């Protein structure tokens, strides 16, 4: 609407310009031309008056000449004839002059005087012609001299000359004005025309620009449709393909134009899908995410999702629909793989759960049933020993002691094994743990039992971490206990504790100057019940470092060790900086 209005306005403006150019030009020229003609008319008129005046003077002179001639040759009829002719010609000349000067009252007055004087002269000349004796030549001349004509005609002539000058001046002015006016009009016309041309030129340029922009947009749109990876097609209610992009042709292995449409393509053989597509076109009903397996270009079957929306083409009244195809084969395959993996995983989880439950039952049973016989062995061997003591059988007593000690040791092993198995069972209770205070606490507990030893502690400032406090306490207990235990042979034990931090993790370490170990066996260090020292040298069951490894692993960290026989050991464990995985 707005556009239409604007176009009309432009057209009206253009028309107005044209009218102004044509009409104004015409009017100005007409006016100038009229004025000029008028002015020239007046010049002509003046010239006519003067011509008429001169003719009159010539006529009067001729009359006088004939009258004097007749006096010399009275018999000459030719002269008389001449007089008569000029005598007859003078009144019409006089009238003509009078008529010509009607526009000027002062000229009229002069002409009236001239007429009277010429009239008087004619009376005298007529008398002379009639041969009036009383009128000799002298008399005639003097009589005529009483009616002077020359002055008056000169005055008339001068007056006319003046008028002529004035009128010529006016005419010349008019011509000049006309020339300027014409020039100005022409210039104005040129300017207007220029404006019109500029405006229409601009209009044209705009239109060309708009058209090329439209062309570019259309080109881009087509390029997008052609470049997009999804197959796209425009279909009719007969499932003919009006248009399809390269992806569509490639996907279904056909060449464009697609003759026969979807009807002849085996991929589109599904009768339900075909009916739904027809419905989209005829009933203007959208089709969302129709999943179907299709025989695409190759021999492989593709899992696709088809979408269709009714569409109205700008250049056709036929109902059409836009059809897009999304190849979900890869995603579908991935989904199936995920499902399969999940199935396998849940199977494994079920298995693990069963195993865990069995393990729990096992350890429960172990803790109850395995210890009872040990207790009985210990108990009854003790009773046996006290009975034997009364009989004084020392050797037997010693055997009984060995039996009791073995039972005790086995009980300790069972206890350690059970506590180790418990480490993996409970959920982590994560909280902020101040490693500094944890280690101070552990240290004071442990050193109270070895007050006779000389131990130098070098504990670096330790950070606060997010972890399970009770489990970390176990870690420090084991590590510090080991350090104290294995440095027992030194006069002065030096135990160092520190931390190395990097962006990913914090690495804590405990170093002692004790017995150390052979790096050859470093792999055995963290194993359950693995010992690198003789039981007679150092007490222990070999569960401590295994527990440390288990706890640290549950916090997402690593454990490792460095050492040399007789040169002490350094045990490292790391805790990740992000939240530990429980």
């Amino acid at each position, binding site marked *: 609407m707005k556009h239409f209005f604007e176009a009309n306005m432009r057209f009206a403006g253009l028309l107005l310009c044209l009218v102004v150019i044509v009409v104004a030009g015409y009017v100005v020229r007409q006016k100038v031309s009229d004025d000029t003609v008028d002015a020239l008319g007046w010049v002509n008129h003046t010239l006519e008056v003067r011509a008429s005046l001169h003719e009159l003077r010539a006529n009067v002179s001729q009359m006088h000449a004939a009258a004097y001639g007749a006096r010399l040759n009275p018999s000459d009829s030719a002269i008389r004839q001449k007089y008569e002719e000029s005598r007859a010609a003078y009144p019409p000349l006089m009238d003509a002059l009078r008529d010509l000067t009607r526009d000027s009252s002062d000229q009229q007055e002069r002409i009236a005087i001239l007429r009277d004087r010429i009239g008087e002269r004619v009376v005298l000349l007529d008398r002379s012609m009639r041969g009036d004796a009383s009128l000799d030549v002298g008399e005639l001349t003097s009589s005529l001299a009483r009616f002077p004509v020359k002055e008056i005609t000169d005055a008339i002539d001068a007056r006319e000359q003046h008028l002529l000058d004035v009128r010529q001046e006016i005419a010349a002015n008019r011509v000049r004005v006309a020339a300027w006016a014409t020039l100005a009009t022409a210039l104005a016309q040129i300017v207007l025309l220029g404006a019109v041309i500029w405006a229409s030129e601009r209009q044209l340029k705009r239109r060309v620009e708009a058209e090329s922009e439209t062309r570019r947009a259309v080109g881009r749109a087509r390029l997008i449709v052609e470049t997009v990876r999804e197959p796209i097609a425009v279909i009719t209610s007969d499932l003919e393909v009006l248009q399809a992009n390269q992806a569509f042709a490639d996907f279904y292995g056909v060449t464009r134009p697609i003759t026969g449409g979807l009807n002849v393509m085996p991929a589109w053989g599904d009768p339900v899908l075909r009916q739904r597509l027809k419905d989209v076109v005829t009933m203007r009903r959208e089709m969302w995410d129709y999943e179907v397996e299709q025989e695409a270009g190759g021999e492989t079957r593709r899992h696709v999702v088809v979408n269709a929306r009714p569409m109205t083409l700008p250049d056709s009244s036929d109902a059409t629909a836009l059809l897009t195809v999304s190849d979900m084969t890869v995603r579908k395959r991935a989904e199936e793989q995920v499902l399969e993996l999940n199935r396998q995983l849940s199977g494994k989880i079920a298995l693990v759960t069963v195993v865990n439950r069995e393990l729990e039952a096992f350890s429960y049973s172990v*803790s*109850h049933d395995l210890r*009872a016989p*040990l*207790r*009985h062995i210990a108990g*009854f061997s003790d009773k046996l020993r006290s009975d034997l003591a009364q009989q004084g059988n020392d050797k037997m007593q010693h055997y009984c002691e060995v039996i*009791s000690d073995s039972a005790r040791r086995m009980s300790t092993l069972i206890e350690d094994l059970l506590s180790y198995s418990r480490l993996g069972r409970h959920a982590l209770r994560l909280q902020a743990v101040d490693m500094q205070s944890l280690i101070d606490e552990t240290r004071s507990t442990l050193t109270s039992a070895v007050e006779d030893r000389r131990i130098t502690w070098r504990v670096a400032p330790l950070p606060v971490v997010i972890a399970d406090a009770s489990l970390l306490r176990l870690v420090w207990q084991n590590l510090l206990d080991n350090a104290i235990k294995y440095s027992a042979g030194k006069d002065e034990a030096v135990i160092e504790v520190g931390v190395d931090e990097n962006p990913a993790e914090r690495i804590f370490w405990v170093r002692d100057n004790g017995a150390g170990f052979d790096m050859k066996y470093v792999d055995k260090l963290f194993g359950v019940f693995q010992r690198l020292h003789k039981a007679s040298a150092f007490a222990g069951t070999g569960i401590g470092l295994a527990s440390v490894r288990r706890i640290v692993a549950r916090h997402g960290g690593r454990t490792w060790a460095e050492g040399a026989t007789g040169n002490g050991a350094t045990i490292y464990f790391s805790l990740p900086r992000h939240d530990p995985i429980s």
Partner: protein
Amino acid sequence: MIREIRTILLVEDSLPDAEMTIDALREGHIANSIVHVEDGVEALDYLHRKGAYSERQEGNPAVVLLDIKMPRMDGIEVLREIRGNEATRRIPVVILSSSREERDLAATWDLGVNAYVVKPVDARQFFDAVQTLGQFWAVMNEARPGN
């Protein structure tokens, strides 16, 4: 006032354990009579005077020394029955177990056990523990009214 000497009920499926326990109590000069039953069902029969114990004299024991892992009915179920019954709910019950399994500890304390003792493997410690228990519960402790 003459103190009535009450019975000690020992619920223990392991005969060596029972023998050791009884020995320890005798060594500790505890005069109370000791009734030994071998599982939970028998324990409840005794408490409710049913089955083999229908003829026994009335009265609750001074203390029940209760093992946990037993055939037929385990110690936790026995404890639940004892605490759930108006006639028996005031009897002191001491768990004598081989293990300190956390779930057992939690279950028995939740059910209102009076003590939980892990039987020491060491013979001397075992004797000391049982004697202390007997002394405390059967001799020193005053029964709750109604028991």
